[in-house]
């Protein structure tokens, strides 16, 4: 059993404009007004790099910065886990279109931004964080897998870990094989000990023979986002951290489950 404490959170999604502003929404005290999140170019990057970032990197960096700031942990003091099922789908689509032409033109910037660890790379360039970055892509199980991996890092190494999840809609025609209408990012800073700003405690375990039904958000308005966006697999955990009561959640990972005991 892995035990970690949530020291900070970041959130961006439809009607979810930052963790603090979203708490009343996640607790059902304010209606969800599902407007797409504003994604300004990341202030932490130099202007030439800022221009090169697509919405996926902006999403990731925005929630990572919010969580780190809230936790009061400098980025350079954290190992990071960046996870996204689809990465920068718009960029991959643009490259695939080029590669279908007789004389493909793939630009150097397009190519180096196409790596799945681009967001982690820009995070370390922008913040000077030079510890290890762990970069995962686990399809519909991305949130469960990344939470387990981040928890294991805290348990094995002791240092705080930044978990950053992000996914955005794919353009046509990839949107038909991976339907998702929403941009969503969430980040948590996980630590081995509770601190003054702790949002809650998580206990994580792997269960290969699932006993519980997969958890879904309590708020009906969040169900489409949860169903379509792989990063939003974390929503049941976020809802509970925002003000729920202690509970045990089951996040599916293939035919098994990551069991998450949340004590806010």
């Amino acid at each position: 059993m892995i035990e970690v404490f949530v020291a900070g959170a970041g959130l961006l999604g439809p009607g979810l404009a930052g963790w603090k502003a979203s708490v009343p929404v996640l607790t059902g005290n304010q209606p969800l007004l599902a407007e797409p999140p504003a994604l300004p170019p990341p202030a932490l990057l130099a202007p030439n790099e800022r221009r090169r970032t697509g919405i996926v990197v902006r999403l990731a960096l925005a929630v990572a910065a919010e969580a780190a700031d809230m936790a009061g942990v400098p980025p350079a003091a954290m190992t990071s886990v960046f996870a996204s099922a689809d990465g920068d789908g718009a960029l991959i689509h643009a490259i695939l279109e080029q590669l279908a032409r007789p004389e493909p033109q793939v630009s150097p910037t397009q190519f180096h931004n196409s790596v799945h660890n681009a967001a982690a790379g820009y995070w370390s360039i922008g913040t000077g964080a030079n510890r290890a970055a762990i970069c995962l892509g686990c399809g519909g199980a991305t949130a469960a897998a990344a939470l387990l991996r981040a928890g294991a890092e805290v348990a094995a190494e002791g240092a705080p870990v930044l978990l950053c999840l992000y996914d955005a809609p794919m353009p046509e025609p990839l949107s038909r094989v991976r339907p998702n209408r929403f941009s969503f990012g969430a980040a948590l800073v996980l630590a081995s000990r509770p601190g003054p700003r702790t949002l809650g405690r998580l206990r994580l375990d792997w269960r290969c023979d699932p006993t519980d039904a997969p958890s879904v958000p309590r708020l009906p308005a969040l169900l489409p986002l949860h169903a379509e966006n792989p990063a939003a697999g974390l929503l049941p955990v976020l809802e509970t951290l925002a003000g729920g009561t202690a509970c045990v959640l089951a996040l599916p990972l293939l035919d098994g489950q990551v069991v998450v005991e949340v004590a806010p």
Partner: protein
Amino acid sequence: MRPLFLTAVAAVSAMGRGRDATLAALCNRRSALAPCDFAALRLPGHIGRVAGIEDHALPPGLAGFDCRNNRLADIALRCDGFAEAVADARARHGAGRVAVVVGTSTSGILSSEDAYRRRDPATGALPEDFDYARTHDLFSLARFVRAALGLRGPALTLSCACASSARSFIDARALIESGVCDAAVVGGADSLCRMTLHGFASLGLISPDPCRPCDAARSGISIGEAAGFALIERAEVAGGTGVALLGGGATSDGYHMSAPDPTGTGAAGAMRQALESAGLEAEAVDYVNLHGTGTRANDAMEDAAVVAVFGTETPCSSTKAWSGHTLGASGILEAAIAVLCIRHGLMPGCLGAAEPDPAFRSRILLDNMAAPVRRVMSNAFGFGGINCSLLFGRAEAAR
């Protein structure tokens, strides 16, 4: 860290299928690189292409995962009794206690490239038979490997460019050390595709001739493809490889997306971490298997990093002139090579290099050297400034 024993390891690359073919290629100093003939691309340079992928069939129940990358992975699983060793581990630990942690940079993207060439001219739709989730999707690789081996532990695909499969050892180590699982299948696969061939060409990083890592006149990489896996666990198993992972380190440059920090600070940091986690000094390492891609920038940076950590006397070389740069699979291929080096007392000298870059200060081997090899440092670096170093050593010293 506590050492993790390599119960089994298997790799396939243009050098050949499995340990005997790979060892023979190393000993005979026979490069597998040939002029690029992939997908009728009119691109300069050489590639390390694995023969026979086009004719390989996945197991019948897993045919839905069919793509070049998973075929390559399947070929590796069938080498050197790997799948049988995993079946034994499954019996020892329980299928739910063996994780699958694998790395790839582009997974089965070739299937999407092909599908984009078959879009409906009227609607733009992708062909009906295209299965994104089981081909292009990064998770396809972990799902395929887990299903092929009948495992039920947690599964992760990690993707950090050319450090992907090297990193898988470190990711699996955290799962084992935190008690999530007792053993793990690590490694990964990367296969030839238009995306990487065109992408590296656009960066001007493809060598017109077969790559010559560490050579004074080196001019870039030759791209290859490979797959490989290792079964790692806490306790040594009779009939295992006799080699253990003693340490591992990973850092981020925070410098540039596609150019390494020329000072080599991040790379040196990863090697130092690997030594620290093993509780060893630099002198304990007999041979450094370099990332050694053959680009001007990588090899110069790595020379600086190696000298900063090891000084100028530790033998080092790159094996990429044999296999090509197999991108995300280079870490596991070179881990398999490290096992061969330790088992056979071999340090391969850089193939194709006429003279080491005169600016280099590390001890670059040009010819194969026979000597006892107790420990090997293996480097893998990737775009996004990811650095990863693994320290392998003889198991008897780790017991």
